[in-house]
């Protein structure tokens, strides 16, 4: 698949990857989540360093496949996605656009991640619906590895929160 011949550059690749979403959080891109550590372009070959949030996330394969397809659509002949663990991904890598998109989905974005994660990171977490901090954690585990379950006492809505990692 060859595009209109526009230059295959690092910037073009990063722009294209903004269309690759986490299928379990379908309005947030892999770029905004901070999962793309590096893009190397060499002629018509591209290599992407991709960091998992949670290692067991079943959406990793879906995202990797779409990364390859989007870059091939730019005219790349060979695309390789490498999983990297150094430095480990943390929620601090998410940008403000990702945080806002999470709130709109009813998922509280994580606070700055402390060196050692304790239950304190979940205390008085602002509700993504009404903003109240009169909230409580109901379950450390949720519908995906990266989410925990909460309840807002103010607006009486259950909500989810992205876990700090």
């Amino acid at each position, binding site marked *: 698949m060859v595009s209109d011949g526009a230059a295959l550059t690092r910037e073009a690749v990063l722009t294209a990857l903004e269309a690759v979403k986490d299928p379990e959080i379908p309005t947030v891109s892999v770029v905004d989540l901070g999962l793309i550590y590096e893009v190397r372009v*060499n002629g018509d*070959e591209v290599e992407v360093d991709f960091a998992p949030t*949670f*290692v067991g*996330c079943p959406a990793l394969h879906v995202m990797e496949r779409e990364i390859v397809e989007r870059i091939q659509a730019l005219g790349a002949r060979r695309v390789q996605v490498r999983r990297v663990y*150094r430095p480990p991904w943390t929620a601090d890598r998410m940008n403000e656009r990702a945080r806002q998109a999470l709130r709109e989905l009813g998922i509280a974005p994580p606070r700055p991640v402390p060196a050692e994660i304790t239950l304190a990171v979940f205390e008085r977490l602002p509700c993504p619906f009404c903003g109240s901090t009169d909230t409580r954690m109901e379950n450390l585990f949720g519908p995906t590895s990266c989410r925990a*379950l909460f309840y807002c006492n103010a607006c009486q809505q259950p909500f989810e929160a992205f876990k700090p990692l």
Partner: protein
Amino acid sequence: MASPFPKPNETVALPDPLREAVGELLLAMADDEVLLGHRDSEWVGHAPILEADIAMASIAQDEIGHAVLWYSLLQELGWPDPDRMAYFRDPPEFRNATLVELPKGDWAFTIVRQFLFDFAEKVRLEALMASAWAPLAEAAAKVRREETYHLMHSRAWVLRLGDATEESHRRMQAALEQAWPHALGLFEPTPGESLRVAEGIQPPEAELRARWEAEVRPILEAASLRVPEAEPVYGGRHGRHTEHLDALLADFQMVARSGLGETW
């Protein structure tokens, strides 16, 4: 064709016999995680409360994901791919500690086993973060962060059930007496250990066990549980398993081995 790219995190090739020695360690870690993940998944739809059901599903997924990571490192060292490792080996080829193959038992046994395993994994990962083999050190650091949530979960359940009611205490104590000797088997010496220690890959298993006991004993004591005096159950790390592994693998490997060549 060779890649034209620099490889910042490229796997550092290991010469034999160190390659085989590191492989033994990875195999033990991967087999522990994939089987415990399977046992945890047996609770999906059956846990005592919905919140616990969700937690076990999530923990099972994490453990199996970690197994894939360790199997992937093995693959880089020359072993077959993760699916082949998980689904096409027979019981004597598995190097898991017997702790993880035991049936899921009651909720108390599941919690006690998970607690003992999670803390064993914690001390192992923290040690491996300083491993001389960079790919292992990096992966250990990544998995250690995720394990934080498992540790919070299993510790909280042990403290809650240890002395909640007479029945919960009785069941937790019985679970601990059953699980403890098998948990000691997590630190069974494996082939190549002295070489791994000499090369800075890992500290001695005996040292890991001492660190683990220093972590779990105070929590068990706070939960009013008494650690039994017991000899370790060894053998798992050398392929000698209980009959429960046969039944587990028959279930776990059935679809992959049905020979239909399915693709997803």
